[in-house]
């Protein structure tokens, strides 16, 4: 028993099944990320004035990631085009590039995540704030027992508001600061629970990264194990490359909005 229109297009719709299926799925993904973006808008609009961070993310790394993804979108399209002209070797080259670009993207993202997780905001007992990247904690550092010291590469500010807009504040040169545990009221890294900005940043980019990972795995599967289907049914294989390519382009599309919204505004 064969299901019609798996490869041939249905005349009145002009589509084969998987293509319609992927567009429907992408429509649902638009609503998924839409839900998250609407959360972002509401949280930002509802934030206290002056308390929404700016400039907390590295624009250079973000730009590199943007260009990497854009390039990968192009290699994805070219991989499909190579399939269409039945050039399997070129398909392999292009999609190898796609996979490498994707992995590089994920690598940079992990670096950015780690950067946030070693960046601490320390609320001091005298009401001021120490803020910077962790260099080291002393061997006897214990917040509960109030022993030891922690060394950060950063600065000390009067008020939490001064930490919000890293674009506006003329950056004083960050220096090495050592803080005693006894002077620390609260110490927290820039992880998801730090404030709603980091929360939505990690959630949005995390979900996006999961999609990148998923897409990479699918493309890798076709790249590594597609030989058999290519030999027996190249048209069906080409359709699979097209459909997975559409998913990949969608993931790029989400980043096209993520990047400016999180990094540039």
């Amino acid at each position, binding site marked *: *028993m*064969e*299901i*019609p*229109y798996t*490869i*041939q297009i*249905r*005349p*009145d*719709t002009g*589509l084969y*099944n*998987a293509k*319609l*299926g992927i567009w*429907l*799925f992408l*429509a*649902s*993904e638009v*609503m*998924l*990320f*839409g*839900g*998250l973006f*609407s*959360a972002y808008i*509401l*949280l930002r609009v*509802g*934030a*206290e004035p002056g*308390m929404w961070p700016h400039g907390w993310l590295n624009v250079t790394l973000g730009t590199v990631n943007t260009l990497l993804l854009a390039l990968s979108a192009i290699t994805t399209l070219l991989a499909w085009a190579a399939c269409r002209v039945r050039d399997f070797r070129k398909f392999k080259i292009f999609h190898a590039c796609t996979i490498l670009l994707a992995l590089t993207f994920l690598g940079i993202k992990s670096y950015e995540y780690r950067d946030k997780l070693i960046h601490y905001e320390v609320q001091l007992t005298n009401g001021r704030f120490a803020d910077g990247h962790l260099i080291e904690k002393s061997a006897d550092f214990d917040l509960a027992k109030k022993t030891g010291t922690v060394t950060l590469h950063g600065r000390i500010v009067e008020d939490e508001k001064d930490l919000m807009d890293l674009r506006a504040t003329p950056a004083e040169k960050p220096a090495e600061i050592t803080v005693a545990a006894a002077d620390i009221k609260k110490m927290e890294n820039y*992880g*998801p*629970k*730090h*404030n*709603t900005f980091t*929360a*939505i940043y990690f*959630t949005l980019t995390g*979900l996006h990264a999961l999609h990148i990972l998923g897409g990479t795995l699918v493309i890798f599967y076709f790249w590594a194990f597609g030989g058999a*289907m290519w030999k*027996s*049914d190249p048209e*069906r294989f080409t359709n699979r490359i097209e459909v997975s390519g559409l998913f990949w382009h969608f993931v790029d599309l989400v980043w096209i909005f993520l990047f400016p919204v999180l990094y540039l505004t």
Partner: protein
Amino acid sequence: MEKLVQQFPPFREAAAPHGHDDHGHHEHHEPGFWSKYIFSTDHKVIGIQYGFVALCFMQFGFCLMMLMRWQIAHPGVPVPAIGHLLEKILGQPAAGGAISPDLYNSFGAMHGTIMVFLGVVPLAFAAFGNYVVPLMIGAPDMCFPRINMASFHAFFLGGVVMLVSFFIPGGAAQAGWTSYSPLATTIPTNGQAFWLVGMVLLITSSLLGAVNFIATIIQLRAPGMTWMRMPFFVWAQFVTAFILLLAFPPLEAAGVLQLMDNVAHTSFFLPTGLAIGGQLADRSGGGSPLLWQHLFWFLGHPEVYVLILPAMGIVAEVIANNTRKPLWGYKSLVYSALFVGFLSFIVWAHHMYMTGMGQKIATFFQTTTMIISIPSVIILTCMFLSLWGGSIRINTPMLFALGFLPMFGIGGLTGLPLGLAASDLYLHDTYYIIAHFHYVVAPGTIFALFAGVYFWFPKMTGRRMNEFWGRVHFWCSFTFMNIVFMPMFAQGIKGMLRRMSDGAVNYSAARVPNAIDALPGTVMELNTWILWAAIALGIAQIPFIINLFWSIGHGEKVNSDNPWGATTLDWQTPTPPPHGNFAHEPVVVRGPYEYSAPGHATDFTPQDEPESSSAPVNPTAHH
């Protein structure tokens, strides 16, 4: 004449072999037990899997309700007969065999969740849809059989997660099926996290199913099956699938956000300055509880149309079949269903009138809510009018279909004061609401689902269910459903609020005689009536359960593939339909409800029966 026939490729094996498919070849290897019944990709098996599991969940949800009704009627009194069993299984929350307030809350939350997401939606959409839709459009299976299988397993896993949550320390979710923050995040147990994970799995299952349904209906209609020749049931499932596709994801997003709140201690839905137990919470704040409500109800409202549309589809099929005449107003039905689906996305905040919205926005939602009642009324009216002049055949499916009509009418009409913001302010969160939505879903949708079971049983098994016990099932269910839910309107109007684990006894005139508008004894007494009616309703399901299983092996055998004399393609298959469904690809030449056509030998003309007259038939007639 050949030229008029659209060139659809033959879907039998005649085409050039397309290399190695999993099932593309002609040898018939008998699949083992696991691939035949557990990991099947056949839409009929998957439909039955969904149906069976969903009915089990509905039974379980019913039991939760009975325990709750006991507690409401006899607050603090140990549950008779099974109280000590509860204590053994659940421990402290069921201490002494009585249902503690926390346990009551988790029963309430899980009753709602299980009935909606594990019971009605899988049964109405996934079970009936999977089994019947490909048959009705003349397709050999769904568009993506393996995704179909994956969607069932995601559903099953989601159900397992939900059930397991009863046994973790702290028990299941307690914050209502609506899981409002901050309560859902500040309850110090993990039940809510399990609920969220379960929901993500269930939503994934529905999304996969929705993609499959839409693609199947668009792409796999048999030659001649134009859009306006599709049975209304297929249209209803089509709109339902679209609603699921586009409305579920924001809830999935919200679920992820709430899970982050619960597990990663973010503050997406927690406001600044939140205090828990008198202490300032160690949270960043800055979040918005309202955001959860918006994202939840963005799905929550379209979800109710997911619950009702397949039911309307089933009722339409059963009515057309048992009146032996075409449905009245087919086009109106179709356009109304489409309009309802579309509008359902922009009415959601009528669940949020009490949240302090501005007047303009409340009016906007009130207006769209009033407008959406119009197509619902049109659909109901068309079904009523379809009875006019029909030669009505009474059998169990028809009884349930007929019962659906006034019950949905009551449910729908009682929704009007809820859609109007002014009256909703009083009625919100009272028993009036409970009565309203249960009328549409319980004697509404569930009756239609029963009708569907009795109606399609002969196609699935080749036997009829017992007619006498079917009628007993109907009349008892009808009577007791009404006794359970009708009094709740009165209780709600009198001011009895919902989700009170003590059955509102602390607001009763007996407890606080001097309070203004304390609930009078008559209202409180109704709780006992409702309890007994619920028990009777439960007992009334026993004949159905026995009938269902007994008839599989011992029911009266049908003597044809089309015992009801139906026109739609699902009845033109062998019984039960084999893998691939149709012996020969059907070619549709007429509409779906050609009953009692003048001059025809029989009182029904199947959609694919070839024209016998010499006049040329154009199977490519476009809508």
